[in-house]
């Protein structure tokens, strides 16, 4: 069965690139351009993995992640944080009841091979 990946990033170029990279590698994708849109798509698409940008208008990736981890239905979906700001790790540096650390961080610019390798770790 084709695995589903939700891409949440406000940059259209990044969304297009990731969409094409993942589709060409056999994944079924959906894109969202901010956290709120991401949450709507999450409910209808129910992905196997989420690729999440941090700096986005409206709800940021941090807000989306916190909300995701509180959701009984979606909290176990693995998340790869894709951001130009490694310091965002600070937000996830301490394990909280509501927000255990994300599975992976990948700094932009990233290598497609590295991303695909990380994805394959979580969804086979």
């Amino acid at each position: 069965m084709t695995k589903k990946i939700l891409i949440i990033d406000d940059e259209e170029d990044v969304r297009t690139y990731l969409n094409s990279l993942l589709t060409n590698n056999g994944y079924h994708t959906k894109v969202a351009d901010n956290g709120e849109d991401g949450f709507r798509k999450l409910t209808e698409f129910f992905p196997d993995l989420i690729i999440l940008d941090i700096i986005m208008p409206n709800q940021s990736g941090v807000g989306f992640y916190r909300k995701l981890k509180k959701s009984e239905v979606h909290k176990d979906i693995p998340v790869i944080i894709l951001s130009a700001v490694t310091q965002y790790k600070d937000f996830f540096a301490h394990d909280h009841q509501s927000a255990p650390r994300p599975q992976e961080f990948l700094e932009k610019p990233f290598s497609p091979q590295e991303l695909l390798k990380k994805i394959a770790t979580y969804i086979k």
Partner: protein
Amino acid sequence: MEKAIVQLVCDLEAKDPHIRFAAARTLGECGENNAHAYNALIETLKDTVWFVRLAALQSLKELKLDTPAILQYIVPMLHDTHEDVREYAVLTINDQGPEATVAVPFLIEALSDPVWYVRERVAWVLGQIGTNAQEARSSLMRCLTDDEIAVRLASLEALGSMCCKYDTEVLTTLNAIISNDDQPSPMKEKVKTVLTRIKKADKTPNSFPLIEK
């Protein structure tokens, strides 16, 4: 390096917020001990775009501000319009270690933040400050009825790190949680852990001067 810093400071005025953002972040990497960079970043805390303000805050955190500067420039960020900036301000205050005590009154106010995960973070930081944040006890006790369980759990944890076995008001409240059938099991479990810790801890905070240690 000085030339590069001058250029980066100029870039903080760029029209494109992404350039301002990148300049602010880079200054955090190369602006150590540079007053020009430091002042420019402080000015950038007033930027109109939230992620530029956040970048300035992150860089100032890396440049390790001293405590008076934290109070003057970082504490006001607890009122920022964006929750990520507010949460990062809380983290920056926590980085001060024991010196963070001076910000306790502002953190108490931040326990009323409209965003639950900021409140959770504030409660957690008050717990890190521990016995020096005892003036937060009553506010943390109020947070035990917060709508979000994450805030309630973080508040319990914080109370556990600052209260002692003589603090009857806190102990009574915690025992009431255990005997309340409406409380969810994670709350009851956490209360049990916290009560054990409070009873074992050999600490008598300053607010109980008449009790012999």
